[in-house]
């Protein structure tokens, strides 16, 4: 039993972490959103503020909300937190600390005749998430304003599947008033969610690869984050087993800190020579730059 646990350590961790950070169980029964003091802190993953159990805030949601306020033009606190998480963890957050990432991981385990690691056109599609960030998280909340100059959280409102699944569904299930307010926008959001959930059975983490603005932000930090993967050039034979195992299809021996790497660690387990290991960025690693 323990062996099974160890093999799936990351999934177990993801479950425990998601349960802990969304531990306001009362919220699920009453259809209420927790509004205590801890909501003042952003959790690192895409964890909707409106999830009844959520004890912390979503950084992307918070970013849009501050940009939407009429008195503010930039979200310093949220930007700072994003940079902190990015600089320390990079996309480790994606692999270990994101509940919607967990959902996609689990869905990919469902058997399907032809599993894919990416969609055709991946070379261009992977940049879509940066556009989502620039347009839906930054630009639109800042520019499309109501009569007293307030914006709207465009990404949360029109795209985020994590919010639909963990926020809208539980709230609507528990609160009659919310159920009555659902309309065509909810229909659209549900369609987006269902599409991504179905796609996740076939393609590994399509939302993370192509759409997630938070992943976009952290991906920029991956090459320079404190937490990183190191390839020991003495042990590596470039056999390519790491890339074969890598569900994000990264040539690990060439680019261990690729922006798409979510730090799942499958490559580490797969390497027959133990050449890959997680490490903390130290000053002398600048000489290993050619390994990047």
């Amino acid at each position, binding site marked *: 039993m323990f062996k099974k646990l160890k093999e799936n350590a990351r999934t177990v961790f993801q479950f425990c972490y998601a349960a802990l950070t969304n531990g306001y169980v009362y919220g699920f029964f*009453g*259809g*209420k*959103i*927790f*509004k*205590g*003091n801890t*909501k*003042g*802190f*952003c959790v690192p993953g895409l964890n909707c*503020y*409106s999830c009844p159990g959520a004890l912390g*805030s979503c950084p992307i*949601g*918070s970013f*849009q*909300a*501050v940009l*939407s*306020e009429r*008195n*503010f033009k930039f*979200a*310093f*606190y*949220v930007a700072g*937190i994003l940079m*902190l998480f990015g600089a*320390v963890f990079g996309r480790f957050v994606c692999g270990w600390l994101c509940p919607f990432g967990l959902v996609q991981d689990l869905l990919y385990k469902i058997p399907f005749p032809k599993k894919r690691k990416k969609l055709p056109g991946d070379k261009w599609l992977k940049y879509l998430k940066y556009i989502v960030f620039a347009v839906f998280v930054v630009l639109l909340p800042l520019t499309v304003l*109501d*009569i*007293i100059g*307030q*914006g*709207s*959280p465009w990404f*949360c409102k029109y795209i985020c599947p994590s919010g639909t699944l963990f926020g809208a569904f539980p*709230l609507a299930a528990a*609160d*009659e*008033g*919310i159920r*009555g*307010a659902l309309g065509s926008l909810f229909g659209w959001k549900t369609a987006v969610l269902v599409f991504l959930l179905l796609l996740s059975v076939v393609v590994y983490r399509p939302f993370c690869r192509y759409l997630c603005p938070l992943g976009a932000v952290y991906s920029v930090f991956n090459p320079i984050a*404190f937490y990183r993967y190191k390839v020991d050039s003495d042990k590596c034979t470039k056999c390519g087993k790491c890339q074969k195992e890598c569900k994000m299809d990264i040539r690990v021996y060439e680019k261990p800190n690729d922006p798409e790497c979510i730090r799942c660690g499958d490559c580490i387990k797969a390497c027959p020579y133990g050449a890959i290991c997680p*490490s*903390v960025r*130290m000053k002398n690693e600048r000489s290993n730059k050619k390994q990047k």
Partner: protein
Amino acid sequence: MKKYVSYLLVFVLLLCSCLAACSNGGDADTSAPGQAADFSEDAGTTAAPENIPVQTTKDPTGQSGVGDFQSFKGQTLDGETVDSEIFKNAKLTVVNVWGTFCSPCIEELPHLGEIAAEYKKKGVQVIGLVGDVYDQDGKLTEATVNDAKSIIKETKADYTHIVPDIDFCRVVLSNMTAFPTTYFVDSEGNFVGKAVVGAKDKDGWEETIDAVLSSFE
């Protein structure tokens, strides 16, 4: 061993920077927002820095209802005192709780303005309740009251808008899931029908109000 030392070092560095970032009061620099992650969305309210006056809500109680509006007390935006006597003016009062921070609330105000004019002859009055006029310390914020006034002028929602007194405001807000929420009250201040969560357009309101009217006739 060296690996663990480096992990420990990073952790200690992080801890120090987090502790250094914490401070007691708000920042003196007005161009940067305060410490708390502040945001508003059309679902619920949350703690805000000093210059955004939003009523903080305590943890929700176990009740889903507000009780009734018989203990209702407040002031109009022009400062006239108001209490539950106001409900005697009509057979049915539509109490629309809205906030200046809430875009969907503002979007439906023009529709409610038209409804208020049209349904007057049917014995229905519309009252607006501005829900975000108090700051975290419970003080009335002039800026929000002025915002409310200019919004009302812009949207031509020229029915009576009320600033409830702080205690009533707290009771209402702590039981609301989202802005806007609209309650229906009879002339005695008792609830009629079900509260409506979310904004509606004119047709939606006509449908809803007609249904409530017929249910208690």
